[in-house]
């Protein structure tokens, strides 16, 4: 393990990328299963419950409708019998006689017998043509002799000479809730001589009708649909004689003689399923209502049970899927641990190759990969060693080169100085005693040492450029160009040069090096135009199409130019395209220019034609405001 460690030290291990519960595959899988079960279970349950609910609603509505129809028929028939009974009683000849003869004792006795026989009747009474009660089935009646002429049933019966079923009222005789049925008593000429009225007890009516209902969740009502619907019969005696406050729509439908079933909400916001049916021979209707809550109690219970079962199923699904995924993940986890170990550099790690199908394959491939990596690592290590050796060799060579250039600077110059010095001393010494030839020889020696001195200086400056680091600052080219031209003009008296200098952009680079580039190129231009009558030097710039953040600068002259055939040699060290006799120079200038420009990441090139002129181009990085 140690062997590879340092190789891995360089790369930062991705340990911050720790696994959390929420991004683990296991969690996501279990979560997915959970979501799936809940979703499918939920949708199925919801649909089933909804369908059941709808069918139950329809069933209850249908049932209540049928029931209402049955109750209406039953009530209708019942009332038919009672009314027939009362009518037949009123047509007994004796009744007319009793009224005419005012024999109230016998009449009362007959009335009592009728009430005894017809149990639905609460009381009954006889009334003369003026509405005065003349007899009552109630022995304790205090109403005998009182007028009932204000009663609707009395007025209707006398006016129409037809029997009349009254709206329900409170009996004036005994305060019971009743619905009187009145029939006229006619004489032989068919003229009314009085009225016989039977008060049908609503309590008893309720008893009979409610008896047919044995379902607690269902409420049976008989209503009189006149006056907005007054309850005639209900299992709750409190409701009798009260007006229906809701279900006006039902009363309206009953008034139109329609039957049916609707879902409705009462004033307590209780939902009810209501069936209703009118009666053929009476202004009455039967209403059967079931509270929705009761109707749906079964389905609600079922929903509760289903929910509990669903939760249990979801839990089971989670547990099962959890166990399943853990079983699958175990070898993967092992693989992860293994890859981490390998990542840390432990290439000796042994993978346990277990798991199903793809996972086993993955383990195997990874194990193989580790093996291959080991081989690569070893060769890498060897390479590293080689690089290290080469680097130290190179460093040594560099140091050697540096001390070499120091030696050149110091030691080569000394003998040169001596040669030159002693030649001069000799010249002084021989003053006057020298022939022309000796003079010439001494001149040659003297000039040669001067040239050699220049060569040494140039070589040193060239190697210095190679070694030195660039200090990147904002460089004002206009300032440099102006300074250089001024200094050359005073030095070389080049008054007849026609300068054409553009306003140059600021560039980013090493100020003294850039100055050297311009110095070399401008002095070259001056040098090579020195034989021309009209000397022209142009300095300008243009954008660099190749590198957007660079700018191309050019210096053109109309001087001696050069042969493009030798362009390759132009920028070489100590390469000259002109003879020393024509133009002075060691041939280091352009080599320095090239080196400096390249150190700034730029390129340099030239165009020329013999005796027509030369153009030098170089690129430098534009200065960018930070």
């Amino acid at each position, binding site marked *: 393990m140690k062997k590879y460690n340092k190789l891995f030290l360089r790369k930062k291990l991705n340990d911050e990328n720790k696994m959390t519960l929420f991004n683990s595959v296991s969690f996501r899988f279990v979560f997915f299963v959970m979501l799936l079960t809940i979703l499918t279970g939920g949708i199925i349950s919801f649909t089933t419950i909804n369908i059941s609910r709808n069918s139950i609603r329809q069933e209850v509505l249908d049932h209540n409708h049928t029931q209402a129809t049955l109750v209406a028929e039953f009530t209708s028939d019942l009332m038919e019998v009672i009314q027939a009974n009362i009518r037949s009683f009123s047509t007994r000849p004796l009744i007319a006689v009793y009224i005419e003869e005012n024999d109230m004792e016998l009449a009362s006795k007959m009335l009592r017998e009728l009430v005894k026989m017809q149990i639905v009747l609460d009381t009954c009474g006889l009334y003369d043509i003026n509405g005065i009660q003349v007899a009552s089935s109630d022995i304790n009646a205090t109403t005998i002799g009182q007028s009932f002429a204000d009663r609707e049933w009395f007025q209707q019966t006398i006016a129409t000479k037809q029997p009349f079923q009254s709206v329900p009222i409170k009996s004036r005789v005994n305060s019971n809730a009743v619905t009187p049925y009145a029939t006229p008593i006619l004489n032989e000429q068919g003229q009314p001589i009085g009225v016989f009225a039977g008060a049908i007890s609503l309590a008893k009516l309720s008893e009979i009708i409610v008896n047919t209902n044995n379902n607690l969740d269902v409420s049976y009502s008989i209503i009189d649909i006149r006056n907005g619907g007054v309850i005639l019969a209900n299992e709750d005696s409190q409701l009798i004689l009260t007006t229906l406050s809701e279900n006006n729509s039902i009363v309206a439908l009953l008034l139109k003689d329609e039957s049916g079933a609707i879902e409705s909400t009462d004033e307590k916001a209780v939902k009810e399923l209501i069936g209703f049916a009118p009666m053929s021979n009476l202004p009455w209707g039967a209403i059967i209502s079931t509270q929705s809550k009761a109707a749906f109690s079964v389905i609600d219970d079922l929903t509760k049970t289903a929910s509990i079962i669903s939760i249990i199923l979801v839990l089971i699904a989670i547990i099962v899927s959890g166990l399943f995924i853990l079983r699958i993940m175990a070898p993967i986890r092992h693989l992860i641990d293994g890859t981490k170990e390998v990542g840390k550099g432990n290439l000796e790690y042994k993978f346990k190759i277990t798991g199903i199908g793809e996972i086993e394959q993955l383990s195997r491939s990874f194990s193989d990969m580790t093996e291959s990596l080991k081989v690569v690592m070893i060769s890498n290590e060897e390479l590293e060693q080689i690089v290290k050796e080469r680097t130290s060799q190179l460093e040594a060579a560099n140091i050697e080169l540096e001390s070499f250039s*120091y030696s050149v*600077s*110091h*030691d080569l*110059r*000394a*003998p*040169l*100085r*001596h040669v*030159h*010095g*002693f*030649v*001069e*001393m000799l010249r002084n010494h021989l003053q006057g005693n020298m022939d022309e030839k000796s003079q010439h020889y001494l001149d040659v020696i*003297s000039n040669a*040492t*001067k040239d050699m*001195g220049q060569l040494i200086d140039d070589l*040193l400056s060239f190697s210095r450029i190679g070694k030195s680091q660039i200090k990147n600052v904002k460089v004002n080219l206009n300032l440099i160009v102006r300074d250089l031209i001024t200094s050359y003009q005073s030095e070389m008296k080049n008054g007849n040069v026609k300068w054409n200098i553009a306003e140059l952009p600021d560039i980013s680079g090493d100020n003294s090096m850039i100055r050297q580039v311009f110095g070399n190129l401008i002095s070259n231009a001056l040098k090579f135009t020195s034989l021309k009558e009209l000397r022209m030097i142009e300095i300008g710039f243009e954008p660099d199409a190749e590198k957007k953040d660079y700018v191309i600068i050019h210096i053109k002259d109309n001087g001696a130019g050069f042969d493009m055939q030798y362009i390759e040699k132009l920028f070489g060290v100590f390469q000259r395209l002109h003879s020393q006799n024509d133009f002075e120079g060691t041939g280091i200038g352009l080599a320095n220019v090239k080196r400096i420009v390249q150190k700034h990441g730029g390129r340099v090139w030239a165009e020329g034609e013999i005796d027509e002129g030369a153009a030098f181009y170089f690129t430098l990085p534009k200065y960018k405001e930070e």
Partner: protein
Amino acid sequence: MTKLKRILLVEDSINDAELTLSALESINLANKVDTVADGALALDYIYCRGNFADRPRVNPAIILLDLKLPKVSGLEVLKELKGDPLLKRIPVVILTSSKEEKDIIMGYDLGVNAYVVKPVEYSEFIIAIKQLGSFWAIINEAPRD
């Protein structure tokens, strides 16, 4: 008239020494010039020890010091002199062929009084030495011992 102080030239090259001496002669300096050929001898001379044990204990008026010297280098000699409170006021001029920036910087950091690069051109060399000699031996006022 007090005895004039001497000038010490530390130069390993006989040729250079001869050239320098000839230049100094040409300005007719009254000061005598002593020449030593390496750094160790230079220190012996200054401290009046070894071969120079009998030398009168008078500091030289100026030391002309080459950098590249056998045994003890010019910079080491300079360091020793400028580190000694009794000797640090002696004017020291480095007279060398080296234009190396690091030598110049090192020299000034150690407290050299002037740094002169020997010109290759003889006439320039003569001019430099003449100026150097007249400046340090005549114009410049050094503290008295």
